[in-house]
């Protein structure tokens, strides 16, 4: 059995969620989603499939956009982007996300940067993966204080996309669009249902004994530790070094 770091578990989970995507957009400050996208590309190429396109926003080298920062949004509207990642200062059980602040708007007690493109992209990108490594009741609340973007819309609202999953440092949830709520899909190694329930401020569906997030196949882990780490080093050198160190520490412990 391969020992796997927590980051690697999340990266592999992201790569799984991205199966079937042709074009994935990633924010510049999102190394785990980017690594997941790069791993997806490596897996598809290794299997002889078509190479997935990855656009890292704000990057010179990993970004083919030439029509300014509006191009991402035009592409999303047209279905030229299959998958994107969003996060939130608060995320609630209905899939609503809050990137603005805690308390009464506008003079919120805590103010975060703002909604960015979420109020648009959440409606238009088919696969939006919610990613937040920190998994605490502070973040995963019953009801967000400000809806930067809603998890679902009524039938009459034009909506081609939305959340498909929520990935945290402890677990992976699937979003059920029809119910408008999350179901626990798997718990990462080293965590358990009680802990996840305690850390989550909203109720979610789950089996009595939810499965553990599966370790990657050895071939996939090899792709991640060889080619993907190399790809990452160019764009996210700090993250790549940290991941290398974690892998090294892990192999010391397990040896």
């Amino acid at each position, binding site marked *: 059995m391969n020992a796997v770091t927590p980051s690697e578990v999340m990266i592999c989970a992201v790569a799984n969620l991205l199966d079937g995507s042709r074009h994935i957009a990633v924010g*510049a*400050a999102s190394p785990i989603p980017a690594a997941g996208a790069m791993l997806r590309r490596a897996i598809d190429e290794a299997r002889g499939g078509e190479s997935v396109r990855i656009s890292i926003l*704000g990057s*010179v080298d990993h970004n083919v*956009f*030439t*029509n*300014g*920062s*509006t*191009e991402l*949004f035009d592409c999303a*509207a047209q279905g030229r982007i299959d998958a994107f990642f969003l996060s939130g200062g608060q995320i609630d059980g209905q899939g609503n996300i809050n*990137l*603005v*602040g805690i308390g009464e*708007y*506008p*003079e*919120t*007690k805590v*103010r*975060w*940067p*703002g*909604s*960015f*493109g*979420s*109020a*648009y*992209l*959440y*409606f*238009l990108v088919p696969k939006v993966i919610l990613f937040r490594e920190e998994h605490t009741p502070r973040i995963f609340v019953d009801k967000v204080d*400000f*809806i*930067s*973007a*809603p998890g679902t*819309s009524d039938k*009459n*609202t*034009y909506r081609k996309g939305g959340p498909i999953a929520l990935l945290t440092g402890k677990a992976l949830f699937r979003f059920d669009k029809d119910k408008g709520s999350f179901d626990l899909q798997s718990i990462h190694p080293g965590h358990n249902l009680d802990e996840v329930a305690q850390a989550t401020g909203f109720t979610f569906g789950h089996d009595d004994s939810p499965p553990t997030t599966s370790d990657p196949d050895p071939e996939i882990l090899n792709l991640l530790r060889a080619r993907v780490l190399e790809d990452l080093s160019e764009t996210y050198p700090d993250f790549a070094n940290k991941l290398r160190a974690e892998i090294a520490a892990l192999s010391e412990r397990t040896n």
Partner: protein
Amino acid sequence: MAARLSNGCKLALPVDYAGVSMAMIQPILDSGVRDLDLVCVPTGGLQADILIGAGRVRSLETSAMTLGEAGGAPCFIRAMKSGALKMRDSTCPAIHAGLMAAQKDLPFLPIRGLIGTDVLRHRADWKIIQNPMVEAEDKIVIVPPIAPDFSLFHAPLADKDGNVWIGRRKELAAMAYAAKRTIVTVEKIVDGNLFDDENLSAGIIPSLYIDAVAEAEFGARPYGLWAEYGKQTEVLMEYAAQAKTEDGFAAYLSEKYGAEVLT
């Protein structure tokens, strides 16, 4: 060039990585201009935070304010808590749509998404209409033009005729098209005409849209300039630490710019 700015004018500033004219902060502070209505295209950072902290900003329209790896924008956060800043929270494509409406002098542009968000709920200037092209219920948001009095940014090159080369940072062109006047700092003003090299022409904003250009080497620092030089994250970190308190920011403003916070 900052003398052209007038109190109460609407000033558009670009996103961190596109070419921020940090070099113009000193002249703007020196000019004493105040009550600025800032528009960040589509997000704001250090430049907007300094102007807010220095008490020069009346309102802010942006989809986010952040120092990136250096965390939240401290003066912005303080101003929001104190209620000193009229905030127009937006979303990136709505900023772009507003600029595009101004570029075409249209009274509105439609935009998808937004329905059911609190972003929309707090924007009295945005409206929901029925899509007039269909009979079936189909609500869509329309946003009004964003026509800045001034757009201000930093670019790699200009020529003596006032043509500015921005390469593929087309959001800068969008800012210039939308604005009544555009003020630019550049790394270098070259002799000859940029149009002489047809290879460059696709990345030129013609002088038609440019009202003033000045040379300012490394004029985007501590931000980077797309494909020219990198960001100095440590300088942003230092700023974040110093500006964490009102007094800390006042000291920063005085030391770095010899300027005072206006109240």
